[in-house]
């Protein structure tokens, strides 16, 4: 088990000139021992690069990787004692489940009696005890993925377990089972788990701390709650949530806020210049006409999603999405509705960054 510190940057090009040449922009990050982390971001944001640097499959072009304060930048995955679960299940076709699980220990010349005990323990934990003598190649995708996880867990001194989008090929109804299994293993073994995904539901349900990444940059590290309530970067607001945060261009002057052609009373002191007002669809409320902090919008679309309704309304060429209770009376398309956009959950952004 280890605390992982990254102080590095990585570029696949030999001479990076500008930001876009970097797969990972300079960053300084610490993953605490025993934590469950998720790296979340769209494809190509650098999250897999970061994971491969931590596991040692890739050496960073600049900077260093520390495990418990020890510099392991040039150390191999084996020396770092890391375990990794890949997007597609990797199993050794010709071996049985038990032989697969024992493989990392056999390679390290662990005594046979100890191997048997560890394999038994891990198989029990993964609920695979009954399948130990089966040929691994004949199993389903989720069982294979459990084996790849198990091969990481059999080593009791493993520094961290890294997951690279491990549920991609798993059937949806099995995903939550595997995720729950992961949670349980984390709870029992107190291992450092780092999980790469582009699926926010996976990240938010799995991790204590989520690192949101875009274009080679970690834009926010926080609890799922913080990412939802106080996105520190406009990208986080946009990426987290379904749908993401509503953003409205705004300008503050003389205690007033100009939004969508309306002048509202500014809720607090705001710097002059171009701002963006951000509010989650969950926090936009229907308001009485002319209420302070509300905007008159035209209803463009109402979708009934069973548990709730999704209302899309337009004002001044902008769109606002609102999540309403399902028992809310249906609003007619084209009618005017007043929407409360200023409130305690409203965030303001300047140059994409959250204003404190």
């Amino acid at each position, binding site marked *: 088990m280890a605390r992982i510190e990254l102080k590095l940057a990585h570029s696949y090009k030999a001479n990076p000139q500008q930001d876009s040449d970097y797969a990972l922009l300079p960053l300084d990050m610490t993953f605490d021992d025993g934590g469950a982390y998720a790296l979340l971001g769209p494809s190509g944001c650098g999250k897999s690069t970061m994971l491969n640097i931590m596991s040692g499959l890739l050496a960073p072009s600049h900077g260093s990787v520390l495990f418990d304060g020890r510099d392991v930048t040039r150390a191999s995955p084996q020396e770092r004692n890391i375990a990794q679960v890949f997007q597609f299940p*990797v199993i050794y*076709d010709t071996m049985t489940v038990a032989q697969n699980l024992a493989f*990392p220990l056999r390679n390290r010349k662990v005594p046979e009696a100890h191997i048997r005990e560890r394999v038994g323990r891990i198989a029990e934990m993964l609920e695979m005890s009954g399948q130990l003598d089966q040929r691994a190649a004949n199993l389903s995708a989720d069982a294979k993925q459990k084996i790849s996880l198990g091969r990481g867990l059999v080593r009791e001194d493993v520094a961290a377990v890294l997951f690279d989008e491990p549920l991609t090929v798993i059937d949806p109804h099995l995903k939550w089972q595997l995720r729950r299994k992961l949670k349980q293993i984390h709870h029992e073994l107190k291992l450092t788990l780092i999980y790469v995904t582009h699926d926010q539901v996976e990240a938010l349900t799995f991790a204590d701390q989520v690192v949101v990444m875009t274009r080679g940059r970690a834009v926010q590290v926080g609890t799922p709650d913080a990412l939802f309530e106080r996105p520190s970067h406009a990208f986080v607001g946009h990426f987290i949530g379904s749908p993401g945060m509503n953003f409205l261009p705004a300008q503050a002057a003389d205690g007033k806020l100009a939004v969508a052609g309306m002048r509202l009373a500014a809720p607090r002191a705001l710097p002059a210049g171009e701002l963006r007002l951000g509010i989650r669809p969950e926090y936009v409320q229907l308001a009485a006409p002319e209420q302070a902090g509300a905007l008159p919008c035209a209803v463009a679309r109402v979708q009934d999603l069973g548990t709730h309704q999704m209302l899309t309304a337009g004002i001044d060429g902008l769109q606002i999405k609102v999540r309403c209770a399902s028992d809310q009376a249906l609003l007619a398309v084209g009618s005017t509705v007043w929407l409360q956009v200023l409130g305690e959950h409203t965030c303001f952004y300047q140059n994409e960054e959250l204003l404190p």
Partner: protein
Amino acid sequence: MSATIKPVNQKAWFLILPVLLCVAFSAILPLMTVVNYSVQDIISPERRVFVGTEWFAAVLRDEELHGALVRQLVYSLAVLLVEIPLGIVLALAMPAKGWKSSAVLVTVALSLLIPWNVVGTIWQIYGRPDIGLLGAALNAIGVDYNYTAYATDAWVTVLVMDVWHWTPLVALLCFAGLRSIPDAYYQAARIDGASKFAVFRYIQLPKMRGVLMIAVLLRFMDSFMIYTEPFVLTGGGPGNATTFLSQYLTQKAVGQFDLGPAAAFSLIYFFIILLLCFVLYNWMQRVGTADAKEGGHD
């Protein structure tokens, strides 16, 4: 369930008719003419006598044929034992990407582009003890090498020639098999601390099973039917040291014009190949894993 019976549609027969005709004219009818010859004694185009299974009995008692069959089996076995491991080693040593990979691929494939009789001629000259580069060099360093005089030399030369000609095919097939292994397998093996040999034994070899099966079958069938190269190189000699089955057959059919025995022998030859391929295929299916259906597209 409804009680209606699914109507039988006979139209499908018309769809397979073209294939049936093609196969009939290309394989079944020629084979039947051979069957026809094998049960008759053809004295002249007008005079023929039905002899039943007499030719088959005669062929099976033929001492010369037994000798050719044993030589053929030993030869094919030797070809497989040398070319398959050598092909695997070559494929493992070939660079995986970049211009080096392309250059090596083209170089390796060169021998496959040379026609059989040219290969025979190349080696005939190459191995000559008086002017051939290989033959003269061997004699110069004191090895008494002469493929026209010594049976062992002739035999080894024919084998080396086949290895030179066809190992690249095995290497290319294995190379294709190796390239289809996703990187994650190698990464996982590194993380599991697997040695180079363990990577070969538990990842590369199992993943190459499909292409190796093709390579073994192709090389077996081809070497079992080998004709042109030994014919050009040694003419079956010295004595009959390199007379393999197909050459023996040609001598009988074309040289002596013994159509009946030659036809009977052709059929026996055909069934030997069919039987051995069947045995080889089933054995290889079993030896790898029990999940034959998955191995192909994995």
